[in-house]
């Protein structure tokens, strides 16, 4: 644990990101399937110009 203190804050997080990415990959896979089914039943209102600017999408 002490050795870690000499490391750059960014290092050592590769492995955890690989694991998180793998888990999220599975979740997103099922979610997108679910959203695809849901899109047949639910209508989403279009965004206003301001909302478009304030979000990343």
């Amino acid at each position, binding site marked *: 644990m002490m050795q870690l203190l000499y490391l750059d*804050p*960014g290092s*050592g997080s*590769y*492995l955890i990101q690989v694991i998180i990415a793998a888990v999220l*990959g599975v979740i*997103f896979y099922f979610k997108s399937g679910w959203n695809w089914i849901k899109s047949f039943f639910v209508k989403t209102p279009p965004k206003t110009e301001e909302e478009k600017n304030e979000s990343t999408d």
Partner: protein
Amino acid sequence: MSQPINHHPASFRDPSGFIYEKDGTFYRFVAADYRQDYDLLMKSGLAEELLKKRLLLPFTELSENHTGRADWYKSLQPQQLPFISYAWEWSFEQLKDAALSTLNICRLALQKGMILKDATPTNIQLVDGRYKMIDTLSFETYNEGESWIAYRQFCECFLNPLLIAVHTGMEVHKLMLSYPDGVPAAVTSGLLPFKTKLNASVYLHVHLQAKMGAKQSVEQKQTARKITRKNIDQILQNLHSLITNLSLPAKATTWNNYYSETILSETYFSEKKKLVSSLLESIEYNSVLDLGANEGEFSLLCKNEAMVISTDFDSDCINRLYKRIKEEKRTNIYPVVIDLTYPSPSLGWMNNERPAFFKRTTADVCMALALIHHLAIAKNITFEQLAAFFASVCKVLIIEFVPKNDPKVAGMLQWRKDIFGNYNEDLFEQAFSQLFELEKKMSVQGSERTMYVYRKK
């Protein structure tokens, strides 16, 4: 020959460039080393998009090299910031919005082939009513297969303090003061209740990270699997939705019922508002410091053109004020959590990087409404000390004197020995007249209180 420049003491960690001050204006030096990344930021359309979405501090390119350095590539003149605050002065919603801005910026960068190389609240400031990236040099080229270098820093500086605040009731500004570089995963994991282990996102970003951090050796573990850009985007999206759904549990604090359930009459409140409005109209000012602002009712009376710094020691009040200015789009108000008896100290390398609150805060007008008894009686600060303090932060002082027979003061003295024989209007005026010229004095209707307008001698 170049003019003398002053290198900003907080700008030395990044070899890509630094901030300097020349003739009262702040500039950014972009080093030749950063050329490729800077060109990508500009040519990919990322800078333009971030500016359009109000996520990046606007800047203009200058072709002049003020520094005379050989490794110069560009000089930038950013929009000048009227006021800088730090995460140890922010309420929950403020840190949350700064976190969401950081994630939005990083996702947009990723779409244009770039990524944030650091993710700290010091790179994000409230400018024109929105938390924006102020460090133009935080972007670097993203190469497929790389992880997000700032991931751990993001978790420690944003996600962890927010989670601790939600689940334990600790305030984010106090956490950030204890951990200016962010709260480590192991500390966070220890503080969060067991039920958070059942939330997949919290488990992955906090508990698993804490577990792995403790076991990991110094050598980077070799993994067969490579991270893709899509993976990083999913991590960013996941962090975004996790943080968006975080909110503080509702609770009653000392002050959040101050106006609604207070023993003070409604007449007093509306009369005081009228009085303060008319006083503000009679003064010329560009900046206001509202001390003990509560939920900012009186800060909101200031004109839109003036910069208003609203402070209170109660983070819930500042949280509500922040939400309100966001809704009402009052972009001139800067809410900060400050305990006047323990204002933020100078921090960072040689105490120079992050100046103490009162080293970066002065104003034309200071408002100290229903404040003096909290300092003089609850904290035993003398009138002479108070006068000297106010004289050091403003030119004009609007101060309300709360006498001993006021129900609030009576309540404060109910359970303690009255050692405040010197607490009266005459001695108050005497102390303040040493340093200030009295301009106006009037009583506040619906109370025994008196309002003074003083001008510094």
